[in-house]
C-alpha cells in the first residue's frame, strides 16, 4: 500500500498533468482568439493603411489611431507630475501616522475604482462646466483624473521596492532627503515606475466607459470629434447591422496591437521574466523547482 507521504503518488501524477493540461488549454483559448482576430483583421488593416490613408472616404482609422494615442499620452503627461510628486511625498517625506495611512488607503481605493465612476465625473461635472466644443479637453482631463491615483500608487510601490540601504547610504554620505530621493532612489525605481505607468496606460487606452459617458453628454453629436479607437469599435459594432464586418476586425486588431505594444514595452522595461520560478533554484531534469 502506498503511503500518503511517499515521494511519488498516483493522484499527484494525475493531478499535475491535469494542471498542465488546463493551463495550456486556457492559454490556448487566449492565443486562439487573438489568432482569429489577426486572421480576420490583418487583411482589412493592411488595406486601410495602403489604400485609404489619405483618401476622402469613410476610412478614418489612421486619424482615430493618432487621436487615441495622443489623448492617452496627453492625459498621462498631465497626470504624471502631480502623481510623481504625491507618490514621492507619501513614500519618502510623510511621517508614519494615521493621516498617511488614510491617504494611502484613499489613493489605493480610487485606483481600483471602476472607470465608469470617472466617466460619470466627466459627464456630470466637466462636460457641463466646459461646455460643447471642448470635448477633447474634457476627455484629457477625465483620463488624467483617472490615471492620477493609479500613477500615485505605482510611484509609491516603485519607491518602496528600493532597498532601505540605498536611503541609509545616501543619508550617511550627507545627502539631503531630496538628493537621496532624486539621486539614489529615482535611478533605481525609475525603470519600474515607467514600466508600471506604461502598463496602466495600456489599460486606460483600451477602456471605453469614459468616452461613452462624455459622448453621452451631447446625444446628437455621437462623439465625432473625440471618438477614440475603442469607442469607435463599440459604436460601429452596436450601430451596424453586421457585426462581423472586415472594418470591425481591422479596428479591433489595431486596438489589440496598440495595447499589446504598450504592455510589451512595459514588460521589456521591467524584465522580471528572468526568475519566474518562485522556487528552489536547483536544476534537476531541466526543471526549476
Amino acid at each position, binding site marked *: 500500500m502506498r503511503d500518503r507521504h511517499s515521494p*511519488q*503518488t498516483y*493522484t499527484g501524477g494525475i493531478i*499535475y498533468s491535469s494542471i*498542465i493540461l*488546463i*493551463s495550456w488549454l486556457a492559454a490556448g483559448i487566449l492565443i486562439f*482568439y*487573438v489568432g*482569429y482576430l489577426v486572421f480576420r483583421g490583418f487583411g482589412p488593416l493592411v488595406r486601410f493603411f495602403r489604400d485609404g490613408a489619405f483618401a476622402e472616404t469613410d476610412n478614418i482609422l489612421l486619424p482615430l489611431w493618432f487621436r487615441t494615442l495622443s489623448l492617452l499620452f496627453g492625459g498621462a503627461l498631465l497626470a504624471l507630475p502631480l502623481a510623481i*510628486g*504625491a507618490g514621492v*511625498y507619501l513614500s519618502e*517625506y510623510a*511621517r508614519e501616522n494615521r493621516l498617511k495611512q488614510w*491617504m494611502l*488607503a484613499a*489613493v*489605493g*481605493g480610487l485606483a*481600483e*475604482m*471602476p*472607470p*465608469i*465612476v*470617472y466617466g*460619470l*465625473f466627466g459627464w*456630470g461635472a466637466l462636460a457641463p462646466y466646459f461646455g460643447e466644443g471642448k470635448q477633447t479637453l474634457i476627455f484629457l482631463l477625465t483620463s488624467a*483624473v483617472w490615471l*492620477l*491615483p493609479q500613477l*500615485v500608487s505605482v510611484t509609491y510601490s516603485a519607491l518602496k521596492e528600493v532597498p532601505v540601504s540605498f536611503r541609509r547610504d545616501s543619508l550617511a554620505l550627507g545627502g539631503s*532627503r531630496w538628493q537621496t530621493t532624486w539621486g539614489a532612489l529615482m535611478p533605481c525605481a525609475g525603470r519600474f515606475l515607467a514600466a508600471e505607468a506604461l*502598463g496602466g496606460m*495600456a*489599460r486606460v487606452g*483600451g477602456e*471605453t*466607459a469614459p468616452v*461613452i*459617458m462624455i459622448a*453621452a*453628454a451631447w446625444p446628437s453629436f455621437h462623439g465625432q470629434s473625440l471618438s477614440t479607437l475603442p469607442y469607435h*469599435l*463599440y459604436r460601429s459594432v452596436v450601430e451596424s447591422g453586421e457585426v462581423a464586418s472586415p472594418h*470591425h476586425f481591422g479596428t*479591433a486588431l489595431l*486596438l*489589440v496591437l496598440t495595447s*499589446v505594444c504598450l504592455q510589451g514595452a512595459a*514588460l521589456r522595461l521591467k524584465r522580471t521574466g528572468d526568475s*519566474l*520560478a*518562485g*522556487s*528552489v*533554484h*536547483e536544476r534537476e531534469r531541466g526543471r526549476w523547482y
Partner: protein
Amino acid sequence: MGIESTKEKLASTGQTFRFGPETILKLATAATLVVLAAVVIFVVIGAVRSVLLVDLDLDLILTAVVNSLVIAAGAVVVALPVGLLSALYITELAPSKPAKMFWTTIKVLSAVPSVVIGFIGLVWLGYYESSQGTSPLRLYPAASLLLALMVYPSLASFLIEHFRRISPSLRASSYALGASRWQTIVYTVYPAARSSIAAAGFFGLGRTMGDTAIVLMLWQAAARSSLTASQDHRLFTVPTAIVMGAELGWHHSELFPMAMLIMILSLAISSLGRRFMQSHWRVQE
C-alpha cells in the same frame, strides 16, 4: 531617525518654514487629494440629492447591483481556479522556458481591451444565435464567460507575482524531507498562498464588476434583435445602467446612487482583499 530629530531641532529654533522640494511635493500631494476628493464628493452629493429629492426606481437599482455581483461572481468562479492552476504550473511545475513563454503570453494579453473581447464574443455568439431568437437571460452565462476570458490573464499574473514571493526555503525544506512535488504544492505552497488566493478572488471580482463594454455590447445586441429585450432591464449591470441612463436620458436620477453604490462596493471589495493579504502570516526569508 537622525533626520527626524534634526528637523525637530530646526523647528524648535524657530526655522519652521523653508521653501524647498518638500513644499512642492506637499503641494502636489494636496492637489492630488483635492482632485480625488472632488470626484468622490461630486458622486456623493449627486447621490444624496437624488435620494432626497426624487423617488427612485429602486427596482432598477437593486436589479443592477444584484446582476453585477452575480455576473462578476460567475466570471470569478470560472477564472479563479483556472488562474490558480496556471500560476501553480508556472511557479511550481514548468521548466523555465515554457514558463517564460506562458508568462509573457498571459502578461501581454492581459492588456487586451474589453471592447475587443466583447466584439469577439458577439461575433461568436452571432453564429450561434442566428437560428434562434435572443433572450436576455441566455446572455448571463455568455457575459460571465466573456468576463472570465477578460480577467483570467490579469488574475493569473496577480497570483504568479504572489506565488513568487513565497520563500524558496519553504519549498527546499519540503523537498529535503522527501516530499513529492504534488505534496509540496498541497502541504507547503498552498497554505502559504491561501491568503493571496482569496485576495486574487476579490481583485477579480472588483475588475469584472466594474467592466462596462462587454455586458453593454451584449445587451445592445440583444436589444437590437428583439423589441421586448430593449425594455428588459434584466441584464443591466451597474456600469451598463449608468451608461444607458446617460445615453438615453431615461434614468438621470438613478445614475448617482448607482455610481455611489458601485464605489462603495469596489472600496469594500478592494479593502477586503487587502485585509486578506495582511492578515495571513507572511513568509519571510
